[in-house]
């Protein structure tokens, strides 16, 4: 999860405004949201309030599933797009999009000589630059950015720390180089590389990356009278005050007819994966990795094919619980409540999951509906899943559940806690030298409690899940 910052708060505020209109069934007023959020007499964040409003408009378009690049006529009001989205007329598979108007604010160069440069005699920057991109102009080093290849040598050798590195936060956060600048200098996400971890979404200080929302679809279904079932991911138990009974009750207040805990699916995943592990080790395989994090399985599919034979074939807790929910409530629409964007992508390929609601969207919905979780009843959970199943959301939790299912304490395991460039290298090395015979891989540090859409601080959420099991 991201450090709390204003870009994130603006997104949540935007969601709350939007959901209020959905509750009132008044999407025609959606054009007012940018005006309400940036009223005339307030100071602007960007150059002027008009720019601020335009950015908000395009962010809303992104949430509705439209890319600002698709806009043919700037005079088409947001309400037109909203109506189209509400009627189910957009079929966009783009889950993450870059809002052009908000982006392009990052410098296009990575290294710059600051005025701390003393123009020294040694000039190690100039001497060590492999491309001879540095010259001394007016007694100071100067990088020729047409030649510079961003190797960073000059920064390393400067005795005065006069050369600064200017990162591009989204590119730096992406573990698989899926985001880069196009000809216009605007970031573009390559969906053939993207693993939907949402790290760019959290990293962009301009909030320029927007996640498509299923809110309109959920409200359309609700309006049609079709019952809604919330499939509640284990990580949700650690959000807000950590009272799952209240969270479950709140879904009923929001208009869901049933709530089904995904932890039941996690029990199934643990059971099946334990069997699979036994079998594959008996068959002489070197090791097995977990498969419940969709960002990780997408990473393997798109970037680490050599690891594919070692990834568990067992489906995710979301899948098993959705199958079960379909069986129990065949006429209902299933909505998975999710900590991250990757689950949205996974759900697109799973016929048993109709829509996904992120933790953030859920929180904004509560606020829009005027519900304070502290002041509502707590529903008693009559047949709670085993405690280990709820801990799937915490790094190490899957392994623990497996240990219980295997009934063995000497499982030789290791964990990859967070996917980044270093851990990708480590994963690759396992093909030749596996460190363990079971590898649990979580894309987000700390597990799903650290997903890009969580609200509660992961440390607190972890504690709350652990306390909740008692």
């Amino acid at each position: 999860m991201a450090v709390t910052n204003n870009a994130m708060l603006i997104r949540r505020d935007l969601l709350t405004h939007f959901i209020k209109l959905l509750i009132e069934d008044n999407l025609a007023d959606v054009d007012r949201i940018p005006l309400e959020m940036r009223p005339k007499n307030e100071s602007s964040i960007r150059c002027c309030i008009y720019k601020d409003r335009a950015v908000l408009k395009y962010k809303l378009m992104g949430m509705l599933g439209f890319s600002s690049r698709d806009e043919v006529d700037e005079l088409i009001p947001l309400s037109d797009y909203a109506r189209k989205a509400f009627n189910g007329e957009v079929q966009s598979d783009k889950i993450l999009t870059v809002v052009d108007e908000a982006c392009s604010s990052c410098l296009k160069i990575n290294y710059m000589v600051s005025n701390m440069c003393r123009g020294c005699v040694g000039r190690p920057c100039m001497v060590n630059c492999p491309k001879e991109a540095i010259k001394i102009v007016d007694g100071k080093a100067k990088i020729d950015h047409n030649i510079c290849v961003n190797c960073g040598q000059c920064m390393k050798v400067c005795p005065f720390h006069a050369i600064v590195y200017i990162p591009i936060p989204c590119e730096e956060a992406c573990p698989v180089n899926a985001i880069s600048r196009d000809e216009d200098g605007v970031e573009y996400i390559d969906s053939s590389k993207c693993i939907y971890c949402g790290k760019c979404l959290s990293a962009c200080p301009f909030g320029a990356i927007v996640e498509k929302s299923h809110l309109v679809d959920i409200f359309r279904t609700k309006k049609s009278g079709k019952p809604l079932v919330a499939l509640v991911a284990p990580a949700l138990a650690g959000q807000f005050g950590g009272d799952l009974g209240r969270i479950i009750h709140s879904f009923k207040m929001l208009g869901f007819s049933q709530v089904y805990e995904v932890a039941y699916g996690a029990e199934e995943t643990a059971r099946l994966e334990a069997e699979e592990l036994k079998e594959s080790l008996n068959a002489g395989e070197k090791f097995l990795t977990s498969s419940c994090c969709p960002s990780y399985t997408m990473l393997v599919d798109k970037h680490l094919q050599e690891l594919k034979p070692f990834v568990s074939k067992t489906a995710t807790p979301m899948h098993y619980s959705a199958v079960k929910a379909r069986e129990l409530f065949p006429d209902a629409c299933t909505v998975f409540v999710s900590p991250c964007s990757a689950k949205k992508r996974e759900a697109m390929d799973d016929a048993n999951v109709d829509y996904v609601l992120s933790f953030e969207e859920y929180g904004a919905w509560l606020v829009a509906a005027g519900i304070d979780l502290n002041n509502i009843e707590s529903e008693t959970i009559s047949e709670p899943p085993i405690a280990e199943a709820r801990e799937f959301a915490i790094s190490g939790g899957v392994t623990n559940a497996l240990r219980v299912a295997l009934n063995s304490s000497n499982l030789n395991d290791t964990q990859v806690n967070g996917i980044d460039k270093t851990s990708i290298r480590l994963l690759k090395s396992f093909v030749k030298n596996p460190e363990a015979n079971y590898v649990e891989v979580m894309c987000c540090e700390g597990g799903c409690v650290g997903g890009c859409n969580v609200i509660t601080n992961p440390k607190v959420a972890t504690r709350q899940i652990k306390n909740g099991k008692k």
Partner: protein
Amino acid sequence: MSKFNLYNTEMEKKVEVLVCYGTLCHLMGGSDLQLLGELLPLDLQGKVDLKGAPCLNFCNEVDNGKPPFAVVNGRKIEQATVKKLIQEIRVELEKK
């Protein structure tokens, strides 16, 4: 420090901090305030009476400022962060 002084400090009234745990405040950045207790600097420990509360009803009025809200010795603090609250606690302690 004499024994007498030691008793005296312990009798001192603690700074009362009420953090809003309401859903709106929690969503709008307040979730980090749950860490205030463990992030209190050593010299402030034992001097603060920290409580969480349901919605403090500040969020209904724009004039109250922006969430998340907290109350330090009766004073409303808007856009509360752990750092800001620690500062405000120090302000209160210095008043004495």
